[in-house]
Each structure stands twice: as C-alpha cells, then as structure tokens.
C-alpha cells in the first residue's frame, strides 16, 4: 500500500518534471544589459593585464640579459687564467707520473687486477705510459737509471718482466697497434732521483676546460627542465663579482614581479 503510493507519487512527479523543464518564464530585458556590462568590465580588466604582463616579462628578460652580458664582459679575463693553471701544474703531483718513491721490491701485477690493487701495493712506484705512435714507444717515460723496471703490457696474461731498463716490443694484433697502454712498476731509489729529473718527468695536465657562463646557465636550465635539483651556486664558481651581479639581477626581477602583482591585484 505504502509502496504503491510512493510509485504514484513518482509517476506524478515525472509528469510534473516534463511540464516544468520545458516551461519558460519571462525575463526582464535589463538582465542581459547588466550581464553585457559585467562582461565588458571583466574584459576591460583582463586586456591591460595581459599587455602589461607581456611588457613586464620582456623587460625582465632584457634586464637579465644585460646583467649577465655586463658581467661576462667585465670578467672575460677571469674565465681562463693561464698563470693560475701553470701554478697548479707546478704544485700538483702528476697523475701519470711517479706516484710513490718508497723503494723495496718490484711486484708483478696481473692484467685481471683492479686499479685498487695497484694503489694498495706498498712501496712500489707505478709509471703509466700511454703511447699512440711508434715515436713515443721509442722514448719511454724517464726513470732513474740502474733501477729494476717491471713493464706490464696489456697483452692478456703475459706480463713481461725485465731486470734492466730495457723494453721489449712484442708483435701485437692489428687492433692493438694504434693505441698501446703500458704500465711500469718501478722500484725507485729516492736519493738517486734528482729534482730536475722529477720536474722533467711531469707531463703537464691538460688544462681543465671551463665552460662559459652561458653554457653553465643552459646546463642548470636543462637540469631544471629534467626535474633534477638545480644548483645555481655553480654559476658563481668562486667569483664574487658574478655573485653580486646575480643578486642584483635577481632582486630587480623579484621587485618587478612584486610591482606587477601589486598593480594588478583585483
């Protein structure tokens, strides 16, 4: 009984729904005028904001460009400091030169061993010699005379040991002729090695290429795009002038942004 009354109500309401959804009421003409007026106001507010936003963004871009350009011009000589690099070379121990001067015993190191095992071998000096031509093979890295020299070649499982200063040239497959890597383990008597020899043995380290500011900025931007953490500090790289310039540009940009936000706050 109760259910049938609800069903009746539902059917009545459906009928009412049909009648009312298509029903229209008269609308005062003033309503559209008011809507139009409001739409115009909204449009009027939006247009200058867009124009100004574009102008401000261009101004900010120009400002940043000028700032960075000015800095770069005033610091061109700081980018590559040759004298500094020369000093570094003279004070640093060469990586491919004599690493240790503690003599005791020569050791033969097999090819399968890692570089860790080379480093951990005590009291043995190691000379690495990489040659790419025949000439350089003829003149191996200078070492103290009368020393036992161990030459380790890259030939698999065939380390060649010599008692003297001599080198052995072995026939090698064509693929290995172009580039050859020889590591020599030398037992050095430090008292015999003169200072001049040491200096001569230094192979100058190729100067570390310093990227231009633009390249560093691009690199950081690439990091930012990839979603990696960005380290803007790398742009400074120990230059206080650049630090100041960056701060100035950043402050100007933030101030500009705040002015824009304040001006167009609705």
């Amino acid at each position, binding site marked *: 009984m109760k259910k049938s009354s609800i069903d009746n*109500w539902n059917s009545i*309401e459906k009928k*009412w729904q049909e*009648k*009312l*959804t298509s*029903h*229209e009421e008269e609308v005062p003409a003033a309503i559209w005028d008011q*809507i139009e007026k*409001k739409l115009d106001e909204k449009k009027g507010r939006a247009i200058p904001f867009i124009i100004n936003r574009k102008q401000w963004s261009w101004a900010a871009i120009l400002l940043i460009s000028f700032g960075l350009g000015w800095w770069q011009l005033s610091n061109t000589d700081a980018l590559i400091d040759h004298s500094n690099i020369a000093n570094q070379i003279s004070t640093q121990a060469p990586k491919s030169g004599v690493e240790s001067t503690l003599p005791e015993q020569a050791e033969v190191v097999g090819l399968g061993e890692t570089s860790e095992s080379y480093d951990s071998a005590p009291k043995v000096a190691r000379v690495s010699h990489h040659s790419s031509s025949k000439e350089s093979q003829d003149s191996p890295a200078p070492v103290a005379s009368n020393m036992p020299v161990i030459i380790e070649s890259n030939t698999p499982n065939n380390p060649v040991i010599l008692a003297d200063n001599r080198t052995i040239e072995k026939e090698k497959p064509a693929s290995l002729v172009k580039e050859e890597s020889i590591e020599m383990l030398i037992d050095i008597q430090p008292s015999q090695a003169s200072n001049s020899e040491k200096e001569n043995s230094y192979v100058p380290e190729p100067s570390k290429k310093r990227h231009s500011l633009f390249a560093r900025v691009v690199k950081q931007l690439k990091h930012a795009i990839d979603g990696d953490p960005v380290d803007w500090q790398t742009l400074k790289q120990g230059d206080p002038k650049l630090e100041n310039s960056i701060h100035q540009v950043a402050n100007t940009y933030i101030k500009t942004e705040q002015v824009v936000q304040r001006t167009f706050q609705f």
Partner: protein
Amino acid sequence: MNKNLLPFHNEEELIEACQKQDRRAQHIVYQINAGKMMAVCKRYLGVGPDAEDALMEGFMKVFGKIDNFQGQGSFEGWIRKIMVNESLMKLRKSANRFDQDIDETYDLGHPEDAFMHLGVEDIQNLILELPPGYRTIFNLYAIEGYSHVEIADMLQISEGTSKSQLSRARQILQNKLKELQA
C-alpha cells in the same frame, strides 16, 4: 538547422564561439536559455529580485567557465546545473537551513488524481507555497532528478533528512490540493 542559432550552424560552433568570448554567441546562448533558467531560479527562490540575481550571476558563471564544458551531456543541462547551484547559494546566504525539524518519514496516502491534470502555473504555485527547505529538496528530487545521496551531499545534510523532508513536502502538497478542491 535551428534558426535560433544563426549565424552559427550548430551548437558546437556556438559553444566554440562562446569559448572565444564572442559577444554575439553569448547573446544567442542567453536568448535560448534565459526563459527556462528563469523558471528554474524562480522555482527555488520565488518571484523577486533574488531569482533575477541568481539568473544574472548564473549566466556570468556560464560564460566565465564555458571552457570547462567538455561536451559530456547536454549544454542546457550544464547551464541548468549552474543555475541550480547559484540558487542554492542564494538560499544559503539568506540563512535557510535544510536540515530543520523533521527526522521521520510521513505516511502518505495516495496522491489525488487531480495532481496529474494540473497546469504548469498551478504546479509552480503549489511548489512555491512550500517552505524553502522542503521546496528545495522537492525541486532537487522530483524536478531535477537528483538522488537522495546527491542531495545530502549538495546540502550538507544526511540522506535520512533528505528523505523525510521529501515525504513532508509531498504531504503538504496533498493538503494544499485538498484545500484547493474544497
């Protein structure tokens, strides 16, 4: 082709033009829908400035948020939803509570056959005579077709309150009709 849409060939073109804030297209949308939407607003808010305000603000929202219309469902239905929401907001502002007094369902008798033959004006007048809370739930359930769960969510009330208020609204309507017939 619907002559009301001219110079646009179909509703999609009209909506696209509205999305570009074409004033002519906006006016056509208004002309097509304003009458129906006015009826919706009046059904919730009664005759008066509130309904006109709701209509105006509703159309501002329609034109402002037309980019959100994805073409799922009818355009008219989308506008109607906005108008209903706008009317509910107006009701809330006028401190109408939808969860008042009752928490039980009323035993309804069979509705009169006369209900079936009522004209639109009479139906509208009957609904408008309901207290705002009952009227809102009756409109949402019986005319707009929302479920009790949806109504409870929209008005922040319990489902039971929605059901009980609907049965109370039906009872009042039945009594009103009896009064009219007598």
